């Protein structure tokens, strides 16, 4: 920018010495140059703008850092909040993982069922049938009646 101004001032000084046609041409040229320079300046000038933005960006970065720190402070909560969302899929897979062992755990109830299905101790099971005190399984295939005297 500083390099450009002396040139324009130089061109302005030289315009006082030329004709009106040349002045118009010089003016148009200057406009074109300015347009070109502005266009170029927008590209190259993005650096100073960026610098300016950087100046502004510094607070933003600081703010970003602050936000980052705040976010870091919030992250656990956010993560905690995110965990269910993110873990919802793992949870689903965990459920699947838990669900998958269920078939494997099916054999586990089997022992329980086996325990339940274990026959009772018929040697201590007694019931009354037809006036008799019967020892053993009510569904036994064979019934033995002992006709006896205790003496």
């Amino acid at each position, binding site marked *: 920018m500083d390099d450009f101004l002396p040139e324009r001032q130089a061109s302005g000084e030289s315009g006082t010495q030329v004709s009106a046609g040349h002045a118009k041409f010089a003016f148009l040229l200057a406009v074109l140059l300015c347009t070109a320079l502005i266009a170029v300046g927008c590209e190259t000038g993005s650096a100073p703008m960026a610098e300016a933005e950087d100046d502004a960006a510094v607070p933003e970065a600081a703010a970003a850092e602050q936000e980052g720190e705040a976010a870091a402070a919030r992250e656990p909560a956010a993560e905690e909040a995110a965990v269910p969302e993110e873990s919802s899929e793992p949870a689903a897979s965990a459920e699947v993982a838990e669900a998958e062992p269920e078939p494997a755990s099916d054999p586990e109830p089997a022992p329980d069922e086996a325990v339940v299905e274990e026959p009772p101790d*018929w040697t201590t099971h007694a019931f009354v049938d037809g006036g008799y005190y*019967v020892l053993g399984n009510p569904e036994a295939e*064979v*019934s*033995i009646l002992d*006709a*006896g005297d*205790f*003496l």
Partner: protein
Amino acid sequence: MLRVEPLLIENYVAAGTVNLRFNHVLDHGGASERASAAAECAGQQDPYSFWTMHNHLFRNLSSLFSANVDTYVGYANGLGLDADAFGSCMADPAILDKIRAQHGYRTNELNIRRRPAFLINDSVYQGGLPFDAFERAIAEAMN
């Protein structure tokens, strides 16, 4: 049955293939009636107690001829039964009627004259049987 019964319980009752019941026989008058009444009164408190008293009576068989009601109440007390309820039951004539009816069934309906005697399902076996004879009789009854 006295010697064979533990083998039957171990080999058949425990497996659930055989159950046992006891039909009173009163071949020794009042002594037999009191002993049978003691077993019945134990059973009134708990069906399995009939069998614990049944086993206790056979273990003390030699003392049963001279045993009175107090003797049996003492047995009941030793087996953890309610002694008062047991004593009341021993005085209940309905118990005597029941055991006499079973004796009559054995004599009059099954026509059993010998002792011991067994009814294995519908087949009557008179006289003492060794364990292997019970095994064969049970196998026949299961076929």
